[in-house]
């Protein structure tokens, strides 16, 4: 009712005890294109939908590596995301330099959250308009966190953010309880399926999405397009969805050239 009166700057409370500017920032996250994350005890996977504004343009980068052991997926204002990724890289490398040891993921996200909180309590700043899924591995295992423009952070077994993420969340809610023991391959498959859910019927190809993984013995890296396409093909060949248990076998080898087809997609509503 009073939204318009109390939403001019971030340092004004509404009578109901809300900071509307912060909530508007979270709205920006919801408008960004989807990103998903899931983890087992030993691995964490991030995935994002990568739609270019037009066929002439290249995709916006949504997955960033912060260190060997941690990376992020962003949704929302990608410029803000880029700046925060630089901050994360800096924090990680500073810790490595002093302690010669990877920065524990939980401490990294707290530093990130504190930085976001500052912007909710200064009249000359605005909150960051980006949500970050932080996936990493440290001595306490694999972790997935969601960092919010509000300065809050939460740990998740699996999560999805951005536009049409509810479809992905519904899928993940059905499956997350087994994720702790999932193999690396099954995690990737579920991430791809979750991304597919956010496309609402559009065909999933490796061109449309990016997937990254980090885990024991495996530094954070983005999986190459061909391997992703192989996973996608393996999923579509089986009935309905990805297989339940240990489909431990690697995706079927060389289906020569997939991809190239299925670009009958319209660009997503403006990925701001």
């Amino acid at each position, binding site marked *: 009712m009073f939204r318009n009166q109390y939403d001019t700057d971030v340092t004004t409370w509404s009578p109901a005890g809300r900071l509307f500017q912060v909530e508007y920032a979270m709205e920006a996250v919801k408008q960004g294109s989807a990103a998903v994350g899931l983890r087992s005890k030993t691995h964490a996977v991030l995935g994002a939908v990568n739609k270019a504004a037009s066929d002439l343009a290249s995709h916006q980068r949504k997955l960033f590596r912060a260190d060997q052991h941690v990376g992020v997926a962003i949704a929302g204002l990608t410029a803000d995301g880029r700046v925060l990724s630089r901050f994360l890289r800096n924090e990680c490398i500073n810790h490595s*330099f*002093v*302690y*010669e*040891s990877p920065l*524990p993921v*939980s*401490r990294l996200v707290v530093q990130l959250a504190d930085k976001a909180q500052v912007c909710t309590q200064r009249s000359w700043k605005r909150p960051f308009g980006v949500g970050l899924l932080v996936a990493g591995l*440290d*001595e*306490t295992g694999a972790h997935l966190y969601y960092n919010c423009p509000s300065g809050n952070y939460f740990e998740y077994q699996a999560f999805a953010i951005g536009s049409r993420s509810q479809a992905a969340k519904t899928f993940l809610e059905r499956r997350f309880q087994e994720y702790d023991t999932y193999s690396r391959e099954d995690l990737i498959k579920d991430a791809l399926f979750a991304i597919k859910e956010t496309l609402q019927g559009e065909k999933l190809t490796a061109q449309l999405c990016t997937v990254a993984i980090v885990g024991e013995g495996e530094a954070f890296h983005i999986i190459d397009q061909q391997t992703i396409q192989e996973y996608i093909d393996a999923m579509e060949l089986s009935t309905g969805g990805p297989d339940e248990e240990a489909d431990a076998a690697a995706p079927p080898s060389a289906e020569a050239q997939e991809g190239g087809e299925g670009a009958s997609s319209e660009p997503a509503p403006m990925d701001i």
Partner: protein
Amino acid sequence: MELQLSMVDGSVCMKDSAKSEISSERTLYPYVTGTSIIGMKYKDGVILASDTAGSYGSTLRYKSVERIKQVGDHTLIGASGEISDFQEIMRYLDELILYDKMWDDGNSLGPKEVHNYLNRIMYNRRNKFNPLWNSLVLGGVKKGQKYLGTVNMIGTHYEDDHLATGFGNHLARPILRSEWREDLTFEEAVKLIEKCLLVLLYRDRSSINKFQIAKITDEGTTIFPPYALKTFWGFSHFQNPSKGAAGTW
């Protein structure tokens, strides 16, 4: 004339109110010093040993100085060199561990991290020509992994299965090189350490016959109370010391 504390490097100097300028001071030489530290890995963890002497130049001034201390749950540190600088280092490390504990998040700094942190401090001070005048041995165990490293006032640092500082490098390491094994039991390790400590007692004039042994394993840390070793001075050469020059002083 008043004393002024410099915020830049913590040095204290005289300030002449007439001139009102600050002259920077830095460590030029040590005053109260500890001698060797010996450290070695054994089957269950790591052992550190030292004597408890604090020398003031050539005077054996302080005889109950604890030169081995615990740092957090996973690390032991032994220091030789300037005792006051060691106390300063302990302040830095206790603060580091405190902030680490305050996270209360299941992560903790292990001996490797503490060693690197200390190395950064020591090297940084050396570059400012104001060193912490110490040679330090850090030993610890974390999640079954044994760690033993050293760092000194010029920032040189390395790890090994057995280490020593000062005279220990010359007198103890050769013994350890020939007799150390990976799978020493605690009792065997102590025997080997005592052999080294005895040589140091005989041959290092800054040492005294009061030793401390500390061990650290995955279960925890123990710093044992000080004790003395049996020595033998009955060599024929030491009998009748003034035989050849009776009557002289």
